[in-house]
């Protein structure tokens, strides 16, 4: 009995201290010290929230056509760099992974579809691009479905299309890519990656010709 009483008091005290006081105090501290980051690193363009720097998004537009189910068909906007493919609709509030193992026919089919789409989109602007030349981040899905970044190689291929479709000099677009390429630990570790939303937002700020 005495043991049970101690355990009940301990459970209540620990729940209040660790389950309420600790996270609420941390929330207060985080909001005070890192206000924007604690709230999700949201990005505003012209006073409108367009997304988060940490969360990948779909740079696609409706084509005007409808699919069999009556939903509008979307196509990537060729004026923008495209995120890694996602099977979750880039949903940051309902994340999941497709869970296809390394030897599943379904995965091979999915990879094949993404590779076809990538080649169809980029080859007109990058002649000579083959399947073997596709950077693997461009056709694989990330674990989160909302990977905000792409590899440098992927960005350099897409730069050809974006430059042409926007009428910008390729050199200028590549400079923007370089400006947005980051490499962790003072460039020593991790893969060199480009944040797609920040790069696209910077493109939109370029004076049009």
């Amino acid at each position, binding site marked *: 009995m005495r043991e049970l009483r*101690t355990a009940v008091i301990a459970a209540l005290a620990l729940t209040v201290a660790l389950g309420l006081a600790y996270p609420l105090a941390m929330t207060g501290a985080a909001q005070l010290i890192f206000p924007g*980051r604690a709230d999700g690193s949201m990005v505003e363009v012209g006073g409108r929230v367009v997304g988060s720097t940490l969360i990948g998004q779909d740079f696609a537009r409706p084509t005007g056509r409808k699919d069999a189910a009556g939903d509008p068909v979307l196509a990537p906007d060729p004026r923008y760099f495209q995120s890694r493919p996602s099977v979750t609709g880039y949903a940051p509030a309902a994340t999941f992974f497709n869970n296809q193992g*390394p030897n599943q026919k379904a995965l091979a089919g999915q990879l094949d579809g993404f590779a076809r789409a990538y080649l169809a989109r980029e080859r007109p602007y990058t002649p000579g691009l083959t399947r073997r030349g596709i950077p693997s981040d461009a056709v694989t899905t990330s674990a989160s479905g909302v990977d905000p970044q792409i590899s440098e190689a992927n960005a350099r291929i897409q730069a050809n299309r974006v430059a042409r479709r926007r009428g910008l000099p390729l050199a200028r677009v590549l400079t923007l890519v370089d400006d947005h390429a980051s490499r962790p630990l003072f460039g020593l570790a991790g893969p060199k990656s480009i944040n797609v939303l920040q790069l696209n937002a910077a493109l*939109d700020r370029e004076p049009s010709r």
Partner: protein
Amino acid sequence: MTVAGWIEIVLFLALLTAITPPLGAYMARVFRGEPVLLTRVAGPVERVTYRLLRVDPERGQDWKGYARSVLVLSAVFGGVLYLILRTQSAFPWNPRNLGAPPWDLSFNTAASFLTNTNWQYYAGETTLSSFSQMAGLAVQNFVSAGVGIAVLIAFIRGLAARSGNHLGVFYVDLTRAILYVLLPLSVVVGLVLVSQGAVQSLHGLTEATGLTGRPQTFLTGPVASQEAIKELGTNGGGFFNVNSAMPYENPTWLSNFVEMLAILAIPAALTATYGRMVENRRQGWMVFGAMMSLFVVAVAVVYIAEAHATPAMQAAGLTGDNLEGKEQRFGIASSALFTAVTTAASCGAVNAALEALSGFGGVVPMAQIMTGEVIWGGVGSGLYSMLMFVILGVFIAGLMVGRTPEFLGKKIEAREVKLTVLGTIAVPMMVLVATAVAIATKWGAPSIYDHGPQGFSESLYAYTSQTNNNGSAFAGYTGFVQPNGTNAGAFGISFADVLGGLAMLAGRFIPLLAALAVAGALAGKRVAPAGLGTLRTDTPTFGVVLVAVVLIVALLTFVPALLLGPVVQGLSDQLYG
């Protein structure tokens, strides 16, 4: 593979080794009750806690008393957690007005967090409210970790005791573990994570319209505070379904590095705490060395395996690294290292989708968990399980060279050996039985998602991970069907939920009780001075014996099962489906 990737791995191992002595020494002081820097602040809180709980810190418990306190507190907390989950719609901070998860899923989840497993059949952000996560799950992140540390400390006291049968006072060890170790480290790590972009707010949902007009809904919550203890306590249950792959949990390469260190810091440092408490630091380093040597092999295998294209990629004519299920900001090196870290420690947080690992890449997490989570292992539980293997190693080596088995000057006799064997064999047996039941009956079938050997691997991984209290998954395996984003109309798969829940409870408490019983049996034994006939347990030679015992007793049990699943996949290019 890149040079930078190997540099990252070496840097990580070096830092882990460097923090082991100071953090281990600090914890030794804390659990001996010696003053530390934090005592000024935490001391008064500690005294109030003992008065509130009416615990006399001077009145030691024998192993049965200690075990009783552990079990009663766990039973009460299990009930509290189950009730919170089942009534979550009555509580605040529920931005999506989620209803209660079904009974079977709630049972599995309560068992999962109570046992430091944090297996996720539920899908974080779409099944549970922020309240359930912080007041239900995250509390267990602290408590289950604290219980693990407390039991380890009691175990070490049993090994080191010169007389009497006292192992310490459970509530004192638990209070100190939380107040001096877990909570302060969580505050620091949590704020570092927020500085990188991990969210910490109670705003709930935010709508946005993207650059091309696509709508996107964002959810924030008390994530960083939970993320910190999730790693430090080797828990692993994510706020979000995809765990530490979600940028809001693990936003940058640096946050990822910090999280990996947070996972292994305490389990590694406890080896030094052990060395100090038995007054032979070389004992601590021997165990550290055995763990490290197994771990280095594991890291290298995953890294090499993932830096190659998988059969599915090859079939689609693609080359390059296996980035399927991995995040660009981590790349192969950080994903491979995290995978090895989280499955060596019984953490189970993941920053990549383990289901998408290549065949041989997938062998490593499973094999590490199958050792019984002793390659660092869970906070506390990893080291007490490893010390059981040490006792077994002493017994086996003693028999081979014809010496009386002695450990730290105490004779290892029939009772200790029986209990040790129970503690080390029970979990592998349960894994095999549960997996066999799940794949041989029709009840296990609805949980399997992939085709061919991968479907078997999913089942094997599920029961290996749950019974060993790891919590990572080949996540195609499911115990919860969630049709449309809210849990209206969702249902649990009772067989998987209940079998998994029972496996987690048995896998936690049988070795825990066996360890306490061994400690109780050793506590009162006379210490004989070391002589020429003593088999020394603080040498590299004994470290090799220990590694061999772990491999033979634990891992060898599973070789046939591993061959049927991930190894077959690693050896063949065939596609299934």
